[in-house]
């Protein structure tokens, strides 16, 4: 418990937030870096995963291929992938940009499977009769996707993005291994200095960040739940929440 108290004291010490402190401080700068890496990676992953997921979910084509491929992607250890990417990138990009590009690629690869799964599972969960009726009423395939499938699948799509963001926030700490910033920088420097306040404080920061972003997504997921479709509430992750859903229902 002393360890925690001292880490918390370190976290609350305004000295650690003073602008211009020596790296890895101030904390808020690392926090911003961490969110930047996360943002870039999630955005890039979304640009790849969402269109692909919509295509698979709408057409049902290529599903098996993508499932096995993303399964393999999930199995890749991100840290190992990062070092491998650095070696490969070495020949192609300048050494000062390679760490950022490598980290982002590694995080994108981490984020794609959950997003893709949420996306096509969401589209597949839409009642076939509804889609059939929409088509028979004269919607184009594009209109079916835009006006029927995506709105109805939104909670699951957001759910996929939510778990991808969570993984990326937790994993973005590895960027510090290749000389970048982020909250991982605080932890690695703590390891180097045998400074347990920093190690634990950094870890607590990552956890707090992940939980608060997760909470935001939980709200978003609830907001996107289709009105008029009671049982299409998003899947709950925690029991406390499902209990309160049950109470409301």
């Amino acid at each position, binding site marked *: 418990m002393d360890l925690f108290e001292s880490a918390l004291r370190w976290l609350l010490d305004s000295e650690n937030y003073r602008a211009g402190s020596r790296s890895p401080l101030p904390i808020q700068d690392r926090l911003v870096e961490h969110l930047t890496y996360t943002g870039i990676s999630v955005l890039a992953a979304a640009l790849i995963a969402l269109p692909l997921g919509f295509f698979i979910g709408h057409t049902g084509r290529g599903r098996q291929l993508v499932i096995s491929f993303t399964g393999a992607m999930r199995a890749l250890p991100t840290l190992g992938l990062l070092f491998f990417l650095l070696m490969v990138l070495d020949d192609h990009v300048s050494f000062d940009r390679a760490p950022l590009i490598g980290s982002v690629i590694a995080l994108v690869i981490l984020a794609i499977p959950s997003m893709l799964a949420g996306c096509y599972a969401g589209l597949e969960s839409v009642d076939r009769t509804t889609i059939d*009726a*929409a088509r028979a*009423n004269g*919607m184009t395939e594009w*209109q079916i996707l835009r006006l029927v499938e995506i709105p109805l699948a939104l909670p699951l799509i957001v759910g996929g993005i939510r778990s991808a963001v969570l993984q990326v926030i937790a994993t973005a700490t590895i960027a510090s291994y290749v000389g970048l910033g982020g909250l991982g920088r605080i932890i690695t420097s703590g390891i180097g200095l045998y400074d347990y306040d920093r190690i634990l404080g950094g870890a607590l920061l990552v956890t707090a960040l992940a939980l608060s972003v997760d909470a935001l997504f939980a709200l978003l997921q609830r907001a996107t739940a289709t009105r*008029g479709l009671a049982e*299409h509430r998003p899947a709950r992750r925690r029991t406390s929440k499902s209990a309160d859903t049950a109470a409301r229902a």
Partner: protein
Amino acid sequence: MIEFESVTKQFPDGTVAVEDFSFTLPSRKTTVFVGSSGCGKTTLLRMINRMIEPTSGRITIDGDDIAGRNKVELRRSIGYVLQSSGLLPHRRVVDNVATVPLLHGVKKSQARAEAMDLLDKVGLDRGLARRYPRQLSGGQQQRVGVARALASDPNVLLMDEPFGAVDPIVRADLQSELNRLQRELGKTIVFVTHDIDEAFLLADQVVIFRKGGVIAQAGTPAEILAAPADDFVASFVGADKGKRTLHLQQRPDDDGLTLVVDGDGRPIGVLRPDGALEKQAPRP
């Protein structure tokens, strides 16, 4: 007028749903396709709005080959009602009804106003307009489905077992409502059902199918009831069952009316001169 010209449909798995089917459905009349499941009646219906493409043969609407028409445009010009209402669960009733006009680019306020009128027409309270489909009963949902199908004022209305999933009382209600609507609107209706009573009640022309989309008999309800073409038809209309042997009866003291009588000798309705069956109100 909808014409099937030697239409065949073989599905990719080899099943032949319909083979060399030729038939003409008159304009502004109700044609009911009836048969047990797997007889190809739904396949035929769905070929009219190109939800299913025939393997060979031709389908024309008023002389126009539908194969040459843009699928989306064709579907928007044909009303379609499904068994499960197939309403968009995330849209309010009024917007569901306005689906096709909105796709056509009609202004939202105008489309909604017209949708409200349609709710009146199908006998729904305007107060339900702001509800979501899930908040309606099955019968109400079907009425919304009918209103949606009528929203683009189509000449042709396709109905695929629309009243199959509602309870008998509501079904009787919807059936008489559809008859009323049809007298008022005069659409070319193609109606699919496996319920022979429903077929006789709604149809100007009944087509009874065997497996494989083969016509067992086609004609007005009166013609079929009076002279079933063969044992299959006879058993289908219930003539061979002791329980409900539908047959026609004319008695001198009935003022020349033709009664439709079941096996127990109970009259279930009166045959109108144009061949339609006027069903008697159910007795308590």
